[in-house]
């Protein structure tokens, strides 16, 4: 039997002017369960709160209803008041008689009658309240960053800076990611490697950062603050602790025909290789598909050449398991497949290349040593045509519906760099729209046009076909309303970018939601842009959506700030208004987990007594209270009504309905 206290607030004149507060507290004092009812000028004031505290103690109240302003305003205040008087803070209900009553109704009778009903409804709900306690869980003070590109590096560095340990898991043999492949960066045109590699070195040197390169996440268990992650360390066949990165093995290797992924397959590398000069870790790796020793058992030259004995052909994948408090996804992007765009002849003509290939062709460490030469005949191209929006903004099903965001800027960069270095080169750019929002971005693009004389053509290319050693680029020039054909030596496609495909697997493991384009979904597009809806999972860089380097770095740091905020806590206090499943009624059908945006629901097998000495094992839902955010989607999806929401239980809401409808 509850003992309820009712406190009607005048809110000065805000409520009292239109609601007869005296009468409201009088009428409510007769409600079932109410043992004390009063009214006061300002309940939220020091004195008002004292009044409540005294009443709770004097009348042994088990719950209170405050008829006042919106719960969004002072629910927290009155919960604290109740707690201070020894009452469970969730035994407090607010009847909103200001915003929802006194402020909107002029008729005093009408407003008073409504206030009574709202008060009565709050009492009806409170009668069914149960004390709730916020759960507490510890936090493992270590973060995992999945992906070692600029996003992952920046996030890891910032977290390490704050004093927390971070692991970077990188699927490739080195960290650095896509940015390491770039030549120059817009809009300042500084050398990509020059700004990236120091950060890579910082990572390697940080005591707090553990780089797990050539590794993949295998399994994720747990929840915010308490993840357990199994990581596969792929066999390198080179002992990381011994290898000095001297490169002797590379020279010794007889199998030199492997395509160099770092150079976008534009040249070759040996079977044992270091991806690039500044690789971190600077350790060789053997391509098992290419290595003669691993394939045929005959060779072993590199092992003989290695002075430190780092090479081990018997190496196997190993697994490690670590605990983390937070997980950052920074899996990045790749260039999308152009197989549906044969009108541009990418597959048929060596001299039709993607922009990322052009980066390598222009880079001093690239296949041509930085001299721009056509892949086909190694001649200097005299006419270069760029095509924008290849596969972006395409809803025909062949490409991506979104704008890849970075192409306008990097194309302007390429055009400018080429005109700068090879002034005799003619550069044309077919564009649909030029999108250059960003600090100094539009100025940059205009410089390409005005200062470097790049020919921008508003229109799209219809087809590219070879004519001798020339590439004929036929397209429309919409401003001149002409169809033009440009005889070019090199065609560069600004291909759409897409999320790194492995992200799908990772998102599933993390139960982080993913959109139709495979970009991870943020918890709130505007207000929580670096968090996944799954608590404890954060998003950094391109995995969340197309963005350039400055934006990636800012997001990475924002993400780090969020992670630090989490790791700084010793305990996580969870919102106690969460779902819970009545195991006796749960069918284990799996419907609830389908609608849970947070992956808070799992299923466990449990034994039940059936009576008559019989038992049976049933699959039942189990809600992780630390992860559940209390939206209630599962409660309605559940056909048996086993799922209910604490604080907003079925019975409570129905009691409110009944109370309102009582005439």
């Amino acid at each position, binding site marked *: 039997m509850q003992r309820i206290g009712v406190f009607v607030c005048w809110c000065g004149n805000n409520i009292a002017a239109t609601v007869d507060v005296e009468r409201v507290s009088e009428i409510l004092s007769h409600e079932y369960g109410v043992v004390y009812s009063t009214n006061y000028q300002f309940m939220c004031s020091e004195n008002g709160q004292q009044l409540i505290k005294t009443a709770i103690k004097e009348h042994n109240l088990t719950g209170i209803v405050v008829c006042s302003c919106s719960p969004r305003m002072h629910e927290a205040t009155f919960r604290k008041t109740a707690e201070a008087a020894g009452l469970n803070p969730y035994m407090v209900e607010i009847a909103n008689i200001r915003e929802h009553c006194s402020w909107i109704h002029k008729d005093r009778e009408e407003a008073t009658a409504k206030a009574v009903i709202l008060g009565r409804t709050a009492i009806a709900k409170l009668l069914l309240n149960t004390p709730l306690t916020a759960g507490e869980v510890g936090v493992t003070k270590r973060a995992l960053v999945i992906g070692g590109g600029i996003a992952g590096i920046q996030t890891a560095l910032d977290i390490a800076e704050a004093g927390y340990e971070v692991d970077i898991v990188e699927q490739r043999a080195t960290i650095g990611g896509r940015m390491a492949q770039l030549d120059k960066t817009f809009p300042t045109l500084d050398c990509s490697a020059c700004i990236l590699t120091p950060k890579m070195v910082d990572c390697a040197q940080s005591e707090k950062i553990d780089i797990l390169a050539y590794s993949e996440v295998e399994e994720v268990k747990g929840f915010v603050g308490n993840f357990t992650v199994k990581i596969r360390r792929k066999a390198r066949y080179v002992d990381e602790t011994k290898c000095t990165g001297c490169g002797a093995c590379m020279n010794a290797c007889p199998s030199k025909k492997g395509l160099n992924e770092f150079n976008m397959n534009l040249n070759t590398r040996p079977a044992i290789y270091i991806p690039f000069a500044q690789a971190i870790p600077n350790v060789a790796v053997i391509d098992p598909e290419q290595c003669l020793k691993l394939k045929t058992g005959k060779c072993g030259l590199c092992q003989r050449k290695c002075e430190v004995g780092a090479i081990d052909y018997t190496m196997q994948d190993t697994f490690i398991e670590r605990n983390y408090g937070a997980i950052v996804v920074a899996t990045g992007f790749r260039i999308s497949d152009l197989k549906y*765009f044969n*009108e541009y002849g990418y597959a048929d003509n060596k001299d039709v290349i993607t922009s990322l290939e052009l980066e390598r062709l222009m880079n001093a460490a690239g296949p041509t040593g930085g001299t721009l030469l056509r892949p086909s005949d190694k001649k200097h191209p005299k006419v270069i045509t760029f095509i924008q*929006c290849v596969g972006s*903004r*395409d*809803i*025909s*099903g*062949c*490409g991506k519906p979104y704008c890849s965001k970075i192409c306008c800027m990097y194309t302007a960069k390429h055009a400018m760099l080429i005109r700068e270095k090879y002034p005799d080169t003619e550069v044309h750019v077919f564009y*649909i*729209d030029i999108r250059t929002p960003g600090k100094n971005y539009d100025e940059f693009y205009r410089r390409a046009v005005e200062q470097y004389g790049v020919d921008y053509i*508003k*229109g*799209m*290319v*219809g*087809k590219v076909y070879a004519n001798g050693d020339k590439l004929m680029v*036929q*397209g*429309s*020039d*919409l401003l001149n*309303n002409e*169809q033009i054909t440009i005889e070019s030596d090199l065609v560069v496609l600004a291909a759409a970018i897409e999320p790194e495909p492995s992200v799908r697997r990772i998102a599933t493991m993390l139960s982080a939601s993913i959109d139709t384009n495979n970009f991870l979904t943020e918890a709130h597009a505007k207000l929580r842009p670096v968090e996944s809806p799954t608590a404890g999972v954060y998003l950094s860089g391109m995995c969340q959506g197309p963005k350039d380097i400055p934006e990636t770095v800012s997001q990475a740091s924002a993400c780090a700030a969020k992670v630090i905020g989490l790791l700084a806590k010793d305990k996580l206090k969870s919102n106690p208004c969460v779902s819970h499943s009545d195991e006796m009624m749960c069918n284990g059908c799996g419907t609830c987990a389908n609608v849970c945006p947070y992956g808070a629901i799992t299923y466990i097998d449990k034994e039940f007594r059936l009576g008559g000495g019989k038992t049976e094992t049933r699959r039942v839902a189990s809600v992780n209270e630390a992860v559940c955010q209390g939206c209630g989607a599962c409660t309605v999806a559940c056909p048996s009504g086993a799922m209910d929401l604490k604080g907003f239980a079925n019975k409570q809401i129905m009691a409110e309905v009944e109370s309102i409808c009582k005439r």
Partner: protein
Amino acid sequence: MDNTELTNRLKELSGTNVRQCMKCGKCSGRCPMFDKMDVKPHQFVSYLADGKIEKLQNSKSLWYCLSCMECVERCPRGVAPAAVIEAIRESVVRPQGGNRLQPEEVPALLNDEVPQQLIVGAYRKYNH
């Protein structure tokens, strides 16, 4: 039929959503008959979107379009300029009554110069 009604009817007849066009001009970039056309393929889409039907109905382009579907095939927005042209063409042809190309007339019209595609297109255009 007032203009809005006609425009809507033609939009419906074309079966394509002209609002999806992002004005990239790829259709015109691909069109093999571009030079012969007074109104260009991309303009068919934007004129229809704007309800400028008369201009389209009076254009020579109507009769130059081969219905080769080059413009349709790789439109990134799933718009079909050829279908727009077809719709406009029908709006002109239908009121003319039965003066269409008959199958038996085709052999006489054939010679080595005429591209196959044109014959296919002609059937499509004049024989329904």
